[in-house]
């Protein structure tokens, strides 16, 4: 328990009549990369949002470094969020700001760096996600994949302890997806970052994960190392992990979320 950085303890969440999370139990150790997989719309992003206090559970608790996010007053939630970096689906960039201003935003709001230092860091982080000379561009003219990478640069600009990635490789070509996966591994190895990655990219998941958790019907149905997932005999997990054409007819119905 002592080295567990993030704990979901029997978390339930309903939206209207839909029971999205039906008792999630998940623990992520400090410095670990946990990859969460599961079909679209199953509640993976909602699970991440619980961690940063954007969504409150109907039942159960979410713990970050021994403190319950569920019971924190709002000001403490804001303080806690400073330890996080989050890559949202599609980047969620502020469209009225340039790429550079977007990436610089967390630094400008929370640190007292001189302007020259801020721009140095912005360029450095953009280079890490393989983007150069884009600081003055507006997010609206970037491709989806580029926006995602700018979002990632913004998420890591303050070198946070915990990074949440919501589909980091969606919209990227395989070479760039591989580069981003390498970056996730590098951040873990160099800075000991604790990460939760929500993804559908199975090769990427096997590349970056210390452990993988699979979400189905509002519950974590399997947690284990990438090797354990490769060797699993569970038909539901097998169908998702090796989702070849001949295996679309499996225990997971096509319409299930």
């Amino acid at each position, binding site marked *: 328990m002592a080295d567990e950085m993030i704990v979901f303890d029997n978390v339930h969440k309903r939206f209207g009549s839909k029971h999205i999370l039906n008792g999630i139990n998940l623990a992520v150790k400090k410095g670990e990369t946990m990859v969460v997989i599961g079909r679209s719309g199953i509640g993976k992003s909602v699970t991440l949002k619980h961690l940063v206090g954007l969504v409150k559970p109907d039942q159960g608790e979410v713990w970050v470094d021994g403190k319950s996010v569920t019971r924190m007053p709002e000001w403490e939630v804001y303080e806690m969020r400073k330890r996080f970096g989050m890559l949202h689906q599609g980047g*969620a960039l502020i469209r009225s700001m340039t790429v550079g201003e977007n990436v610089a935003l*967390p630094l400008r*709001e929370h640190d007292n760096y001189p302007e020259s230092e801020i721009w140095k860091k912005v360029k450095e982080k953009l280079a890490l996600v393989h983007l150069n000379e884009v600081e003055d561009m507006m997010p609206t003219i970037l491709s989806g994949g580029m926006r995602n990478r700018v979002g990632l640069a913004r998420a890591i600009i303050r070198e946070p302890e915990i990074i949440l990635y919501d589909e980091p490789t969606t919209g990227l070509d395989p070479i760039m997806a591989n580069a981003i996966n390498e970056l996730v591994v590098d951040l873990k190895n160099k800075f000991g970052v604790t990460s939760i990655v929500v993804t559908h990219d199975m090769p990427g998941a096997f590349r970056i994960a210390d452990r993988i958790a699979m979400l189905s019907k509002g519950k974590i149905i399997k947690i284990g190392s990438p090797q354990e997932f490769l060797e699993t005999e569970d038909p539901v997990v097998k169908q998702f992990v090796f989702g070849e054409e001949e295996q679309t007819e499996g225990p997971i119905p096509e319409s299930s979320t």
Partner: protein
Amino acid sequence: MSLNFATLSKRSNAMLETAGHAILIIYESFLFLRSVWARRKEIVYQTYICLVGGFPVTMLVAVFVGMVMTFQIGVFLLRFGQESSIGSLVAVSMCRELGPVWTGVILAGLLGSKMAAEIGTMSVSEEIEALQVMAINPIRFLVMPRFIALCLVCPLLTAYADLVGIASGMVISAQILHVDYSAFMSNAREFLEFKDFWSGLIKSMVFAITIAAVGCSQGLRAEKGAEGVGIATMKTVVICCVMILLTDYVMGWFLMNFLGVGA
């Protein structure tokens, strides 16, 4: 019958929720006044945008309000040979009522809707959530600067509308009622008190707070994509106009009974 009651109860709950959220936004914006210096660039930018956006329309409307009022009241006064009182009537009604109310309505349409659309678009595209995750409070970052900008601009434009309205009334009274400028001004000066002017500015400050709170609140609560942003914008204009007229009456009564304005 039970269905009607349920609908009524649902609607009144929604109204209470809307009002509660707007009041909460006013409260939180006041709490974040301590960050004024840190957000000074945005405050200056928003003030500039509000001024540039509001200035020409306010002038245009004030000119016509002054002209129409002078013409209509003047023609009536002519029947009784009382046209010499036109200066005081125009000046007092512009400063106490028409200047602040019309400026408020114009700014609700121009700036309240703009705030709702801007912030609403950010809400539906998850930009507000992204700000929150970056530990940036959207009230401090987006709402407070707009709040201050509107609180500065609304009284300023009201004072400007008062002057323009009186000036245009003066021209019409000279041209149509044959009351010359000096007669108009001396009559205005005789009856217009300083409290008529500042009571109008107090009203305009309250209108500014109302417009900013409703616009930002509707924007932050916008959902369901482009349609949601459209609804938030429409609601902002409607709620602001109703609230401006309602608070104008309540404040008029309060200012008269407790501060002797117009008594």
